[in-house]
């Protein structure tokens, strides 16, 4: 984002106080997904029977248009598995709402690629969590690397320039940053790196997959060197405490300039905070989304000055502003304390100090049930536990 100013007032104050409509809205269309990534933010897998109908989705787009929300980030689940996906996309772009959608690439046929290449108003983001199949598939599932590569090839062949390759940075793939950049360059795409959050199923793998402090420092230096060439969705603003801020707004926009609408219409403060503590309302309620955005008590509270708690005395507080609310919440840290990945190490120390602790679980889990292990027939049998030795009598 470029800044345009004659004299620069503190824009960040306006953003922290909240705008009449979000700048960046994530809309997850379905909890259904053909993959089962270990770090899925929304614990997706199975469709929820209460998901918004086509008519409700189109009415929501009308509301976005009235609120002048320029574009929405559509995700899921895998949004393209919805039968009405293209109808929703076409309706949005016909109503001045641009679309960027995230996909694992499984439904990007050559025909779809050609169609996407023909539209200025639709952007595509292919998820890739390893620059090699070995690293990617450990997180996203067997065959998912090949699927993503095939989708990128098709988009490029169709003439789509500048789609996004979106990577969640982990301990395992952080050594592949240059390789990711090379992949994006090869397909005329733009690389986007985002932060691994302990949200959804991510909570189960965060301890082992989040970057080490040393890796995090290397990531910061790498990003700083590349400037606006690599996108981050403002994901790493907590790293500003290392020194210079990375490009972006550098603030937690939750409920202020950012929010999430989930597949059943629930409005959360941000895509990483699917929990009742961050639930502002539902788009099906009277007054719809605009009323939730402008009037919900939670969002009003988030827009008031926040307490900086134990970070108050830190020299870097103005830089990192306490980091990511969701990352703190789902690791069991106080919301007015340090980010678990605080650049100065305060978060890690606090986690050590707290030791074993109860961490909040996400509000909803749509994970597909684990493949059932072969059960012993007798577990289900009404005769289970009854010792019958009839056969032995014959011996």
């Amino acid at each position, binding site marked *: 984002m470029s800044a*345009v100013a004659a004299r620069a*007032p503190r824009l960040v104050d306006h953003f922290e106080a909240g705008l009449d409509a979000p*700048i960046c809205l994530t809309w997850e269309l379905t909890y259904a997904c053909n993959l089962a990534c270990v770090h899925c933010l929304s614990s997706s897998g199975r469709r929820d029977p209460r998901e918004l109908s086509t008519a409700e989705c189109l009415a929501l787009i009308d509301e976005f248009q009235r609120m002048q929300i320029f574009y929405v980030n559509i995700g899921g689940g895998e949004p393209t598995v919805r039968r009405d996906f293209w109808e929703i996309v076409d309706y949005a772009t016909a109503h001045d709402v641009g679309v960027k959608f995230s996909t694992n690439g499984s439904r990007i046929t050559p025909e779809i690629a050609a169609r996407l290449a023909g539209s200025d108003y639709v952007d595509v983001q292919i998820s890739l969590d390893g620059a090699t199949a070995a690293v990617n598939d450990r997180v996203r599932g067997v065959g998912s690397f090949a699927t993503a590569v095939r989708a990128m090839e098709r988009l490029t062949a169709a003439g789509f320039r500048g789609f996004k390759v979106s990577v969640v940075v982990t301990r395992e793939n952080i050594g592949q940053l240059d390789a990711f950049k090379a992949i994006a360059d090869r397909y005329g795409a733009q690389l986007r790196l985002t932060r691994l959050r302990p949200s959804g199923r991510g909570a189960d793998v965060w301890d082992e997959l989040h970057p080490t402090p040393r890796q995090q420092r290397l990531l910061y230096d790498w990003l700083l060197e590349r400037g606006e060439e690599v996108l981050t969705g403002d994901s790493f603003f907590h790293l500003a405490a290392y020194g210079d801020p990375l490009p972006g707004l550098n603030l937690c926009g939750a409920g202020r300039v950012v929010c999430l609408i989930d597949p059943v219409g629930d409005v959360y403060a941000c895509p990483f905070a699917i929990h009742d503590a961050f639930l502002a309302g539902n788009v099906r309620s009277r007054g719809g989304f605009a009323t939730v955005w402008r009037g919900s008590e939670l969002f009003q509270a988030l827009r008031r000055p926040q307490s900086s708690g134990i970070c108050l005395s830190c020299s870097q507080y103005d830089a990192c502003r306490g980091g990511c609310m969701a990352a703190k919440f789902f690791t069991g840290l106080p919301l007015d304390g340090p980010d678990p990945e605080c650049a100065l190490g305060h978060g890690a120390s606090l986690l050590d100090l707290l030791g074993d602790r109860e961490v909040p679980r996400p509000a909803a889990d749509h994970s597909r049930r684990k493949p059932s292990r072969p059960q012993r027939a007798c577990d289900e049998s009404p005769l289970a536990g009854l010792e019958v030795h009839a056969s032995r009598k014959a011996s």
Partner: protein
Amino acid sequence: MAIDLERPWRVGRQVALRPEPFGALAYHFGTRRLSFIKTRKLLAVVHALDEQPSGRDACRVAGVSGAEMPAYERALETLAHSGMIEEDGR
């Protein structure tokens, strides 16, 4: 490249403006880039572009003083660079 404020300018054809307390958000549907118009006066200049015969006239009717001109020229240059405003072939 410096902006030629003697020429007529207009808001880009693929650009939408959303007024905000600080000024406006500007979004370019073609490049999918978002920019911030950080002051209300700059927004007034941008709004005036369409009707005024030149960029300089738009600044004048929006109340930009002589002392402020260099800063506004730079701001308009940035907007032109990202395609948020474009030269009008009137």
